[in-house]
Each structure stands twice: as structure tokens, then as C-alpha cells.
């Protein structure tokens, strides 16, 4: 499938930036004035939202907010495997 980005690479990227955003989020709860952590959170969160939208257009939604990213006449939320299943995320 040429032209389509690699599913595993996209997912690895989503996992990585989501993890970084969560780490910054937990840290910021107890260090709300840390400018460096704030910047890191904004940056990671921006990359995460972009990656989630991109992923949804090629491989179906991982979040309900991106469920309409791929224009389709059927409900895509349930089409791709669930995370614990073969081929899931």
C-alpha cells in the first residue's frame, strides 16, 4: 500500500507523544508554575492531537473526537480491532 504511512510507526508515535504529554500533565499538577514542563505539555499535546487525526483518516478512530476524520457512510468506531485483540492497538 504505497502512499499510506506505516500503521505501526504512526501508533508508536501516538503512544510516545501521549506518554510524554501524560508525564508532563502529572508533573504539572504538583508543579503548576514550571515553564519548561508547561511548554513540553503544549508541544506534546499538539503533536498528539495531530497524530490522532492523521491516524483516524487512514486506520480508523482511536478517540471519539476523531471518529468523523475519515469521511465514510458507516460507523467506523467499531470496525477496527479492539486493543487487546489480534491487530489491535
Amino acid at each position: 500500500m504505497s502512499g499510506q504511512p506505516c500503521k505501526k510507526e504512526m501508533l508508536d508515535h501516538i503512544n510516545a507523544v501521549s506518554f510524554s504529554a501524560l508525564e508532563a500533565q502529572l508533573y504539572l499538577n504538583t508543579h503548576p508554575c514550571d515553564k519548561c514542563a508547561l511548554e513540553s505539555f503544549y508541544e506534546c499535546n499538539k503533536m498528539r492531537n495531530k497524530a490522532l487525526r492523521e491516524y483516524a483518516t487512514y486506520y480508523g478512530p482511536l478517540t471519539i473526537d476523531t471518529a468523523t476524520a475519515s469521511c465514510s457512510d458507516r460507523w467506523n468506531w467499531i470496525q477496527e480491532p479492539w486493543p487487546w485483540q489480534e491487530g489491535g492497538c
Partner: protein
Amino acid sequence: MWNYEKRLQYPVKISETNPKLAQAIITQFGGPDGELAASMRYLSQRYTMPYKEVTGTLTDIGTEELAHMEMISAIVYQLTRDLSIEEIKASGFDKYYVDHTLALYPIAASGMPWTATYFQSKGDPITDLTEDLAAEQKARTTYDNLIRLCAGHAEIVDPLRFLREREIVHFQRFGESLRIVQENLDSKNFYAFNPEFDCH
């Protein structure tokens, strides 16, 4: 309220079946120091917590524990899928199978079903955060024990190591939370009053 993300926090891809190890790992789903108890503990404690930093920490860690519960459930599910009746008998999985077939049910490694008595929500921030710090260490020890039991099974050990590391990060955040609570109290007598009750 909550939103679901259709991905695991860290990937679980286990190709072997191993009902014997599944019976040990399931304790981090429904056991005394497992992820379900952790999540319910923090999400219950947060309502009366008077300090916004700590309420946020309880909410976000309580939420992350649900993602960990899903990872543990995925490990158990993958280790027990497509079992034959011979494999079930030979591995000692028959006692679980007779009540739950191959479905997920929150029990400890001993077979004890999950119970809310695994945690406390005491309504005193020093008391609750001290329990939370201990809970993270107890979960870390459980992961240490599981990782020893699973030696040689790289696909199982990998997500367990991720989960073990999260216990250490959460311990750190709860330590900071306890410091924030103490900074809000009388430094000469932390127990002069209970800020979740006496301070209205």
C-alpha cells in the same frame, strides 16, 4: 466523566498462551495491590481533598490506573485465548474456568474475588496520601515478583516492566502531594485539625 481511547497505554503483544502465568498476573487486575483497587482508591479519595494540586493528582493517576487495568486484562486475555480443555486441566486453570470460562473476572492470584476492603478512603489527607504511597510500593513489589516469575518470557516481561516503572513515578507524585498538604498545615502540629473536616 471519561473518554475511552481505543489503544493500550503501552503495547501488549503476546504470542504464547500460558494459563499458569495468567493466574499469577491476574492479581494485578483483582488482587489486593492491583490496578482496580488503585483506581478506585484514588478516584474515591479525591472528592473531599481540599487542595487542587492533590485533587488533580488523584484524578489523573486514578484514571491512568484504569489504563493499567486494561493492559493487565489484555495480558491475561492473550495468555488464555483459545485454550483447549486438556491445557486447562493440565495448567490448573480448571478452577477459574469452571466459574468464568475464558472471561476476565477480577480476582487475586489466590482466587479471592476483588473487594473494596482492599483500600481505604479515610477523609484525612495525610492518612489517605500515606496509604497511597504504600499502595504504589506494594504494587511495585508485586510487579517485581511477577517479573521474576515470568523470566524468559520477554513479551510478557516488557509490559510488566513498563507498569512497574509507573508505580515509581506515581510514588514520586504522591510524595509531592503529601508535601503540598503539609505546607498547608500548621508546621508545628500537622494533626492540629483535619482539613477535610474541621476547616469549613
